[in-house]
């Protein structure tokens, strides 16, 4: 290690985000009126600038800095762009809801920016220590966001629950890291990879450490059996926060999963593969079967996201760059359909407040046909009906899994997809064929309508045109793990 100033070029986006977040905090504090809308607009601008710097200035070459603790490569750039899109749309969609519930405080966009910074650090982690710091930065922002509506019991309860269980999972992760460090004497991914390659397999302590790290990471992606927090937190948190939870942090945690399993522990694939197979199968089963009994649409989305994490983990099981490529395609479409669904949930309200019960959707088609059609598209897409975007995501994953020889895994995936299709289709049936139970109020928000429209278009059969460019970009991202 040297005493010279480290190369700051690869971390430019992170520096911009960090400094920008602090500046936005200043703007918010010294603007007594209208702080929220100004800070929101500026934070959107900040995210766009970060994206520009990330793409044009940093680029996709593999660069390592800070004495090997930070890595920027095509995989990192790709996932960071997805995270930026998720954060951007979450801030765009949050405005009307927060104003409506009198919680339009300027800290909201600032916390989302800081969470984004943490996710960037996770995606670019090249040592177990920078991994942990990034993870904590992201998690801590999310705990606060979950409890953002502090005068509502449900929201504070979800924040506290998330905090306690998150701290527990951090403890497990740290314990695993300490065991790994005790075995190898290093936390650096490159050194770890070299040492573990030499060490070979069959070391009990090493395996135990890896399992603890897997448990910690599985909690962050809410994979079964570490999913208990997800439905309660998703239901209790304010809906814009839920939509953020279901998108950007999921992508970041899955990227971290790939980074850790295929980087330092690539040679221990025999040890972690079975664990990830179990996580994947259990998540798919719970996501499909428990969701059947849900009546609250936010809880339903929580189980839906657990199921989708199962499919995503299936792509990681393979442990090759082909799996990463499939995962990258999958995440793009997962992002668009989830954002779209939550946009639709955010734009429905009746006289008593927001629509959250599935049965309240009855008769939406007569009230607001465009919205009903959009939701139908999202549901078909989430279920993976052919010709819609969700189908292509699943298709790529199943294809990669079958080519790698894990046929039973793919069969379970298809079966759970069919089971899952039932509850997605039930929503469509309620919207189009049931009699209206409650009257909907118009919630006019141009930004929200715009988000729903664009995501619905992306998920519609028009997505056929998107397949080629998305697949090409995913292949580019997976280059980081080739060879």
């Amino acid at each position: 290690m040297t005493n010279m100033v480290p190369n700051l070029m690869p971390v430019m986006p992170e520096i911009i985000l960090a400094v920008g977040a602090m500046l936005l905090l200043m703007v918010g504090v010294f603007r007594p009126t209208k702080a929220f809308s100004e800070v929101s607009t500026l934070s959107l601008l900040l995210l766009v600038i970060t994206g520009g710097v990330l793409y044009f200035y940093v680029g996709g070459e593999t660069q390592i800095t800070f004495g090997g603790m930070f890595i920027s490569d095509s995989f990192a750039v790709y996932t960071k762009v997805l995270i930026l899109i998720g954060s951007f749309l979450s801030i765009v969609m949050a405005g009307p809801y927060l104003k409506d519930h009198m919680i339009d405080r300027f800290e909201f966009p600032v916390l989302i920016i800081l969470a984004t910074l943490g996710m960037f650090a996770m995606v670019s982690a090249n040592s177990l220590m920078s991994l942990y710091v990034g993870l904590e930065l992201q998690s801590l922002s999310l705990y606060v966001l979950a409890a953002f509506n502090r005068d509502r019991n449900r929201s504070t309860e979800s924040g506290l629950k998330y905090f306690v269980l998150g701290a527990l999972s951090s403890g497990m992760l740290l314990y695993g890291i300490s065991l790994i460090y005790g075995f190898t004497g290093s936390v650096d991914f490159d050194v770890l990879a070299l040492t573990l390659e030499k060490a070979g397999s069959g070391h009990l302590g090493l395996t135990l450490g890896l399992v603890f790290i897997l448990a910690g990471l599985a909690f962050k992606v809410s994979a079964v059996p570490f999913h208990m927090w997800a439905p309660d937190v998703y239901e209790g948190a304010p809906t814009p926060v839920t939509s953020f939870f279901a998108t950007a942090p999921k992508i970041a945690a899955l990227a971290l999963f790939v980074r850790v399993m295929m980087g330092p522990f690539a040679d221990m694939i025999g040890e972690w593969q079975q664990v990830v197979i179990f996580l994947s199968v259990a998540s798919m089963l719970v996501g499909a079967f428990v969701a059947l009994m849900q009546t609250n649409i936010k809880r339903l989305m929580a189980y839906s996201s657990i199921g989708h994490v199962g499919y995503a983990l299936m792509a990681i099981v393979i442990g090759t760059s082909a799996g990463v490529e499939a995962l990258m395609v999958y995440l793009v479409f997962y992002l668009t359909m989830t954002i779209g669904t939550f946009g639709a949930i955010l734009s429905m309200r009746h006289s008593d407040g927001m629509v959250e019960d599935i049965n309240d959707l009855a008769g939406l088609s007569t009230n607001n046909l465009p919205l009903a059609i959009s939701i139908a598209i999202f549901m078909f897409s989430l279920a993976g009906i052919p010709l819609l975007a969700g189908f292509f995501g699943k298709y790529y994953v199943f294809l990669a899994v079958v080519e790698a020889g894990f046929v039973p895994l793919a069969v379970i995936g298809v079966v759970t997809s069919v089971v899952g299709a039932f509850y997605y289709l039930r929503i469509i049936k309620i919207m189009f064929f049931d009699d209206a139970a409650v009257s909907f109020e118009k919630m006019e928000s141009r930004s929200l309508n715009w988000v729903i429209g664009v995501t619905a278009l992306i998920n519609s059969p028009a997505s056929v045109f998107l397949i080629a460019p998305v697949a090409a970009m995913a292949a580019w991202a997976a280059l980081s793990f080739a060879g």
Partner: protein
Amino acid sequence: MELIAFSFYLFATIAVVSGVLVISAKNPVHSVLWLILTFFSAAGLFVLMGAEFIAMLLIIVYVGAVAVLFLFVVMMLDINFVELRQGFLQYLPIGATITLILFIEMGMVVATWQLGPDVAANAAAPSPAVGDISNTAALGQIIYTDYIYIFQGAGMILLVAMIGAIVLTHRKRPGVKRQVVNDQVARRPEDAFELVDVAVGEGITQRTQNKG
């Protein structure tokens, strides 16, 4: 050498015993006091290992700040610890079973522990040679040059913690009188008082009410 060994066993015994007393003391205030004793003996162990900076840090930060704060919280919050302990016996069997299983598993892991190849070289890589520079200088070099990224990241985490505490607890209360420095500086003598000729035999009638 014997003195060092003796001190080690002394500090270690005190640390373990007071650690047990922290969780078994009936009175929570006593628990905190035992905790402070644990910190002191841990600091002694650090000194024995040559990590004098961390030892001092433990005394200043943990004993001086955290434990005393803890003591205040315990004394002021008036938590009913008897109520918290309810159900202890009910959950004891299952808790003890799980703990025992975990303990045996950990014991097996530790008993069969092997070190990986190159572990000594890997572990020694980041720190400068012992004996060249003092503890404090070595820590400073590592934290502010090699690990500056993590140091800054930890700083961001603390910032989030601060924002979070403010977001979740700060309330704007109406009717609170605050000091406004600008108003105080902008205030002129004419606003505050005036000279009045007092006629002999008469008092001053109150002229203005809004000044002062």
